[in-house]
């Protein structure tokens, strides 16, 4: 594996201040870019990394993270908005950890920037009319 993989890491509250990520470099010889880091409403840490290195080390690193209690998820663009259903209310705007929803100051419509989306799925249940969907 030479091309980077984008992975979403969710750290439960108890792991948020533990030094875990540096071990990806030290023990697994992976390189990483931090694409996004935040603390979500559930008070878990959320980190989106682009990881590159050997395929074998990558698999081992993911296993290490899972065993340490970090939830990992390969980032795929699988959250989309049902445009017919969206009422442009704005309830999702402050829920999204990466500000993928932007209110147009003139029209007051809510624009969804799906390229920013890290598929954390927080908006799925927070959207009152269930306009946000996960593509299977």
């Amino acid at each position, binding site marked *: 594996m030479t091309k980077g993989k984008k992975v979403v890491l969710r750290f439960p509250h108890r792991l948020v201040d533990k030094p875990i990520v540096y071990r990806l470099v030290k023990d697994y010889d992976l390189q990483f870019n931090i694409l996004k880091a935040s603390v979500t409403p559930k008070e878990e840490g959320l980190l989106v990394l682009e990881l590159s290195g050997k395929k074998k080390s990558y698999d081992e690193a993911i296993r290490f993270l899972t065993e340490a209690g970090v939830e990992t998820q390969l980032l795929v663009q699988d959250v989309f908005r049902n445009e017919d259903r969206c009422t442009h209310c704005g309830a999702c705007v402050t829920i999204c950890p990466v500000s993928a929803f932007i*209110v147009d100051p003139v029209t007051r419509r809510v624009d969804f920037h799906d390229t920013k989306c890290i598929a954390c799925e927080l908006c799925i249940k927070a959207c009152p009319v269930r306009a946000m969907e996960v593509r299977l």
Partner: protein
Amino acid sequence: MTKSIAEINEKIAKGQAVVVTAEEVIDLVNKKGVAKAAKEIDVVTTGTFGPMCSSGAFFNLGHSKPRIKAGGGHVYLNEVPAYAGIAAVDIFLGATAIPDEDPRNRIHPGEFNYGGGHVIEDLVAGKDVRLVITAHGTDCYPRRKLETWINLESMNEALLFDIRNAYQNYNVAVNLGERTIYTYMGVLKPNLGNANYSTSGQLSPLFNDPYYKTIGVGTRIFLGGGTGYVAWHGTQHNPNVLRTEKGLPRRGAATLAVTGDLKQMSPRWLVGTSFIGYGATLTVGIGVPIPILSEEILSYTAVTDNEIFAPIIDYFEAYPQRSPDILGEVSYAQLKSGKIKIQGKDVPTASLSSYSRAVEIANILKGWIQKGEFYITESVSPLPGVDSGVIVKPMQERPFEEEG
């Protein structure tokens, strides 16, 4: 300058009425001044599109053969229970009803994906829904069980009847607690993580007629995509609250009870809604026309978001405990900027009601009036005003051990 509703309706009939939205009127009044603008403008249209829990619908299902008496029995539409405590085949379905089997908040926060509001949306979308009735059986209504598909077209009457909609102002909800809370004002993140509000501000019907000089019982309105009427003042109507110098209420104040023919309505303007951890409801579109009978009435419709203030309430402690504490007031202009300051902290804001859809409603209503499809009504009876003595009373509990 004064105009009568009859004169305005004559102009509507001739296709000559000058109609503008409550947003457009702001600029016009700024440019032309109140006197000139009041002469020119006949009607100002308003709009709001937000979740309104006190909504529901009455249905007459038609009589089956042999007959069944739902009254006193149990009725379900797509598993959602309806109220059957009236005559044989009249029922009422409330927006917040949920199936008996719904897990509710057993695993917190519950999802509430389908409820009464969703049934109403499905019906106005023309879909078939499953009707199940169980009854006790009588000599004249012998059947005890009925299961059938049914749709809106096959029913006799179908009436949206919302006992409280279109709140004149509402709380801005925040969370001072240490954990995320799930409320009817949406998901509130801990430690002032966000602030949610829910009115269309300068476009909202009752902010444009703060003393109810034109809106009253019998006022014809846009309701759910069809025409409806103000049936009464809404529940918890509370006109005598703190007001700004211009008379705009700074707290939740007046409300409207509204009704209309569900068969004319559309799923674009009645949308089944789910608040995670809270429940199901219905998002309702309402637009009220305001006839410009005088300069005073016009000047009220020129209200802007920076003149309207709402109270900030903590939904972690103050709201559930019914404490009167507020964390301050903010204007709708501040709320719409995307960020407000509370206790020195920048708090991002979000709306639960759709301003862009409210604009759309005001424009649709404007179009109806311009085309002569919608006439203005004289109200039959005014809404209780500031001096009416009408107030909201909190409940005083009296334990059963005390004398009844």
